[in-house]
């Protein structure tokens, strides 16, 4: 549904996107993560037809975002990182204006506005001024506005920024419902726990390019049956230096963190590799107090990718 090939975009000589690739299938809820300045917002603006690209191709539903922008706009709903509202309009006027802007007419217009009011939970406040709404309500209103014309693809740039925990939970539930309705969603966020909860895959972006983890994956599979890399936390008695030497000498294993009496190691492959490492440590004279498998969360995987690159 979203196909990006080698796109490049510069601002005053600085490359914001530098040959980035992305492929999102229909109906997926796909995450996009990367540090500040990685190019996430530029990518979102490019896909939403706001920014022209210098080279490469970007297509949504098989339509080019540069040469078929008008058709693409019918397909997409774009929520910018800091969405604005018309404070002096009522909630209903705000939605009606955008329904007009999306050329919805007659019964379709009325139905779309009614549905948006229901979706945002603001039906009872349709006559209130937008100015009177809380931040979370405004965010719901803007998301409802984005859905007015029944887009097939949603591009959400940091939609949870500034929301309180309850509003974030509501947003996650709403995104899951929208995915269940068949809408393809590309969401960029710094709140990794939210992405972990709702996304099936997450693309890594750094310095405008596809960033990769230790295995060379630029897309993290969050619903995979078996993660390709496992993390173990080891508690030791005494100096950890001999243990670090043993870990690093074992094929497929490496030390991620080491401090007095504690190691965090990464082991590739199956459980046999972990057993081999434990055996090597014991045979090597290391007093192992604890040897725990730690589930590799998105936050940790993100840290592994971007901390090393940053360093």
């Amino acid at each position, binding site marked *: 549904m979203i196909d990006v090939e080698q796109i490049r975009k510069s601002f005053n000589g600085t490359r914001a996107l530098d040959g980035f690739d992305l492929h999102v299938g229909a109906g997926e809820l796909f995450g996009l993560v990367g540090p500040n300045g990685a190019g996430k917002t530029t990518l979102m603006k490019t896909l939403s037809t706001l920014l022209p690209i210098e080279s490469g191709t970007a297509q949504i539903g098989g339509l080019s975002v540069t040469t078929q922008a008008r058709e693409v706009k019918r397909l997409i709903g774009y929520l*910018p990182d800091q969405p*604005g509202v018309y404070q002096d*309009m009522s909630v209903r*006027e705000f939605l009606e204006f955008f329904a007009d*802007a999306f050329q919805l007419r007659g019964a379709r217009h009325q139905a779309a506005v009614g549905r948006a009011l229901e979706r945002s939970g603001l039906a009872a406040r349709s006559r209130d001024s937008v100015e009177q709404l809380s931040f979370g309500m405004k965010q719901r209103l803007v998301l409802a506005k984005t859905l007015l014309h029944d887009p097939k693809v949603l591009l959400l740039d940091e939609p949870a920024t500034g929301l309180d925990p309850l509003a974030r939970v509501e947003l996650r539930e709403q995104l899951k419902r929208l995915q269940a309705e068949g809408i393809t969603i590309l969401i960029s966020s710094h709140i990794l726990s939210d992405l972990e909860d709702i996304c099936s895959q997450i693309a890594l972006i750094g310095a405008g390019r596809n960033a990769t983890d230790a295995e060379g994956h630029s897309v993290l599979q969050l619903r995979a049956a078996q993660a390709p890399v496992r993390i173990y936390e080891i508690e030791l008695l005494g100096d950890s230096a001999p243990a670090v030497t043993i870990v690093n000498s074992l094929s497929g294993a490496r030390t991620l963190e080491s401090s007095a009496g504690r190691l965090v190691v990464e082991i590739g492959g199956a459980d046999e590799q972990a057993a081999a490492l434990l055996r090597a440590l014991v045979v090597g004279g290391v007093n192992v107090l604890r040897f725990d498998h730690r589930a590799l969360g998105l936050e940790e995987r993100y840290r592994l990718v971007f901390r090393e690159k940053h360093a």
Partner: protein
Amino acid sequence: MNPMIRKELRQRMRERRGWLLPSLYLLVLGAIVTFAYFLITTDRGQSGIQGSTVGVTLFLTLAYSQLALLLLLAPIFSAGSITIEKEQRTLAGLLTSLLTSGQIWWGKFVSSLLFVLLLLVTSLPVLSMAFAFGGIGPWEIFSATLTTVIILACMSAVGLCCSSAFQRSVHATAVSYATVIAISVVTAIVFFVRLSIYESAHRQAAAAGRGWYDIPLNIRAPMYVNPFFFLTASFAPPKQLYPAWITCAGVFTAFGALAVALTLRNLRRRGDV
């Protein structure tokens, strides 16, 4: 109807300045005309004065002061029109809707111009005072009004162009006012300075008295972008509109068209939303 026009008019009429500015405008205009009336009648009251002279004087006072006031007000309505969308971060929503850049521009332009035209219309009762004294025909009123509308349309287009080019309303408004001053005041200063230099070099010809078209074109040229000269040219009888009024109309139309083209280009660039 273009949804942008409906939205803009609705928002403008809800603002406090929606009623405050027309009220102030009428007060100032009324005060100027009253002052002009008393000035004429007090000076010549004893010897008697023709009603038509009063009518013509009031009309000219009204036409020039109205143009000056509207030139000062036009940037307020147009220069903040697009920057406000950037400041409140709603421009991205407009540009990703099915509204074209042209529709967005047209909505902003019409609403800005309509508000200025509203002020023009509200001054009709004051104008009727001048009409009542005589000396002014429908042609003078029509040509002066048409000229004022052309100038204001052009200045609204320039204001929108500044609005599309800058991020902040204050910057766009400042540049719009600088443009108004440049075409109204700077062109006149340039003209009169160059004319005086020319006349001091050609004393004999100057002493013999010269018409407008005896002044070399390169000296006259700046005045063709001066709105007050454009208005003055509109007082000529219909057969004498060419070349001064027609030239001014062409220059202002070209100026406005350039502003429109630049605004649409800026809106299509979109990178700063």
